[in-house]
């Protein structure tokens, strides 16, 4: 008994010593750095020399070769300082919060605003002296706002906007009626009416459905909140108050948002039951590719997915690979989203039209709080957001730039997206943490509203009923955000 007790005690002491050793061996001092006005002094003084900074870039930018060009140009420009920027060679969804404190994260990150601002909320990225940067004057306030964080009472800019992401309408040019220029171009502007206004697209979808029941006009998952919110925004709805920063003010039922909800019901009627779930999102590439769908709405970054599917379809139909590629490029059109009727009735062919407000995002650069060379990182961000590099980025990736001078030079869709962001027609996705509580309730609500088109007895037959549903969902989201607080 005595020996056993001694053995047990010895074991416990050894275990304790081991644990103490492990804990003391760990240096946690760098785990968290705090923001203060002194944080900005990190960017004062002489730039670091002979350092290597790791940059995490977008996968597409790497695969198409833009990133190599950027690194080569930067390294050449800063060779005299011995600064070398390299590919961080990490997964684009790397967790800075986990790896940064231990020195394994990237020094500079390129991400969407909502991802970067999550890091900013926990102080994993540095506040930047944005106003002192060359690009500051060229980037609209709405884009800078997406990178503003209120931390411990101070307002900090934690990222530099590079490009604008917003929903676009994709359609098949070869599926337009042959005589569209005479029958579907009322304003004679050379653009088919059905891709200019939702009313015309709705009518054209009805026509396709009645003539060929296995084909569709416009098809899109209406329960996808990212895209469906645009209909509410266009009629006065919003996500959070105070420019998407006040989670206590949930505005999805504000203004005449119920009119937007009715548009969702009307659009659902020219689709099928797949619109209430994500089936359409999953198969829209192949369905648009094989001509089952005439048009859909999604983000610009999946353009190549449609091209690939169209090429496959043309190849199946006996065209050579080069012919298929050329035909796909020729027939797939990505354009701005159509206009909405002011009165919110897609059935009213003479309704006055207005621009559609959509939800979007701003991708940009941020600097890790754990970098050993903040000034070199800032130099890199300055370099990567310069006119020449953003222009080059557009050439390689076809992005819509956040810089006004580049957008003006490019014109077309890039300029249009820039103008929409500047005019508030693109609502940047909220960057506050409460946004996580939005998606599921909204998807359920949008799915339920869209399903009304297929019910024998509609659940939301009036605008009042739709308004009530929007308000109930807003209340539910509010409870989800604040009940546990």
């Amino acid at each position, binding site marked *: 008994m005595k020996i056993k007790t001694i053995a047990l005690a010895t074991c416990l002491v050894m275990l304790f010593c081991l644990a103490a050793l492990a804990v003391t061996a*760990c*240096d946690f001092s760098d785990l968290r750095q705090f923001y203060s006005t002194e944080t900005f002094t990190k960017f004062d003084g002489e730039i670091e020399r002979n350092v290597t900074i790791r940059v995490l870039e977008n996968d597409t930018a790497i695969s198409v070769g833009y990133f190599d060009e950027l690194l080569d140009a930067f390294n050449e420009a800063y060779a005299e300082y011995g600064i070398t920027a390299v590919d961080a*060679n990490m997964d684009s969804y790397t967790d800075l919060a*986990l790896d940064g404190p231990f020195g*394994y994260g990237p020094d500079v990150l390129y991400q969407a605003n909502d991802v970067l601002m999550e890091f900013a909320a926990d102080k994993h990225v540095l506040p930047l002296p944005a106003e002192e940067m060359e690009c500051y004057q060229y980037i609209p306030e709405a884009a800078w706002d997406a990178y503003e964080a209120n931390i411990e009472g101070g307002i900090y800019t934690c990222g530099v906007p590079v490009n604008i992401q917003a929903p676009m309408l994709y359609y098949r040019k070869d599926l337009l009626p042959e005589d569209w220029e005479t029958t579907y171009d009322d304003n004679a502007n050379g653009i088919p009416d059905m891709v200019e206004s939702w009313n015309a697209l709705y009518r054209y979808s009805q026509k396709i459905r009645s003539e060929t029941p296995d084909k569709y006009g416009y098809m899109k998952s209406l329960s996808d909140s990212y895209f469906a919110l645009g209909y509410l925004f266009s009629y006065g709805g919003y996500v959070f108050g105070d420019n998407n920063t006040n989670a206590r003010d949930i505005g999805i039922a504000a203004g005449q948002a119920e009119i937007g909800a009715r548009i969702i019901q009307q659009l659902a009627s020219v689709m099928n039951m797949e619109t209430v779930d994500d089936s359409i999102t999953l198969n829209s590439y192949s369905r648009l590719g094989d001509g089952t769908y005439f048009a859909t709405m999604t983000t610009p970054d999946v353009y190549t997915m449609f091209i*690939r*599917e169209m090429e496959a379809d043309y190849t199946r139909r006996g065209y050579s690979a080069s012919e298929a590629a050329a035909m796909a490029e020729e027939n797939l059109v990505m354009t701005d989203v159509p206009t909405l009727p002011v009165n919110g009735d897609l059935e009213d062919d003479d309704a006055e039209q207005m621009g559609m407000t959509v939800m979007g995002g701003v991708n940009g650069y941020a600097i890790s709080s754990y970098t050993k060379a903040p000034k070199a990182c800032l130099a890199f961000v300055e370099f990567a957001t310069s006119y020449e590099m953003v222009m080059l980025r557009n050439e390689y990736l076809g992005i819509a730039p956040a810089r006004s001078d580049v957008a003006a030079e490019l014109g077309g869709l890039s300029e249009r997206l820039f103008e929409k962001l500047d005019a508030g027609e693109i609502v940047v996705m909220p960057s506050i943490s409460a946004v996580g509580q939005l998606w599921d309730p909204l998807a359920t609500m949008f799915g339920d509203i869209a399903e009304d088109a297929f019910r024998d007895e509609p659940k939301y037959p009036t605008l009042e009923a739709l308004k009530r549903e929007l308000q109930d969902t807003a209340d539910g989201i509010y409870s989800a955000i604040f009940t546990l607080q």
Partner: protein
Amino acid sequence: MRSYMKKPVGMLKFKKAADVGLTYALLILVGIIFVFPCLWLVLASFSKTGSLYSFDGFFPPDYSLDSFKTLFTDTAMYNYPQWFLNTLLVASMSCIIGTLLVILTAYTISRFEFKARKPLMKITLVLGMFPSFMGMTAVYILMTQFNMINNHWGLILIYSAGAPMGYLVQKGFFDTIPNSIYEAARIDGATNARVFCKITLPLSKPIIVYTALTSFAWPWSDFILPKLLLKERDMYTTAVGLMSLPETEFARFAAGAIFIAVPIVVLYFCLIKYMINGMTAGAVKQ
């Protein structure tokens, strides 16, 4: 006197045939249920467009070998050959070191009587009940302090060090080797090391093969630990690399998953005889 009614022979034959038929039908059904996902993955790996979204119903509309080609040729972003080599290094080294440690642990526990033997067995049994991912955060922090993040030897260390925890099957095998053989060797003057190397090991081929295979298979397919410890793309193992592929590269994912399964399947088929001997030897009651 009791009389027993004999059942007609035809009836018995019918019952037996029905029994066999039902058993086969059930086995075939279960077989289909298990084989179908694998079959689907194999077909998906031959999908021409490469996207999961282009499937017409459950199967790809067009087939080609492109996915397998790009898996090994398009390495700029997704360096599958490098991931494969990394996995091979980690699995092989973990297999060699882990097998050695497991065999030594099991042999010691089986053959030697010492005071801590029973408590050790109890402790390992209890510790084995906890899921290994419970200590992941601690493992991560410790590895950062040893500078073993982004280092394949960090993985090998953890796999090898953790392997002896599963020594029970091997101990069961060593328990079945008659003590008289060891006693004879001892009488002839053999040392412990000589007994182990010259007598135990040659008799233990099945369990060594079984141990080596299981020690190889675990790191070969593990995801959680490599995902935690390997940060750079070129350091990834296959499981982590495949999981990092975007949704648009599903055919490449499927091709990679099929290819990674080939070596382990071949190994299993070649060594199945030893494996079964190894697993069952310790289970026989005499």
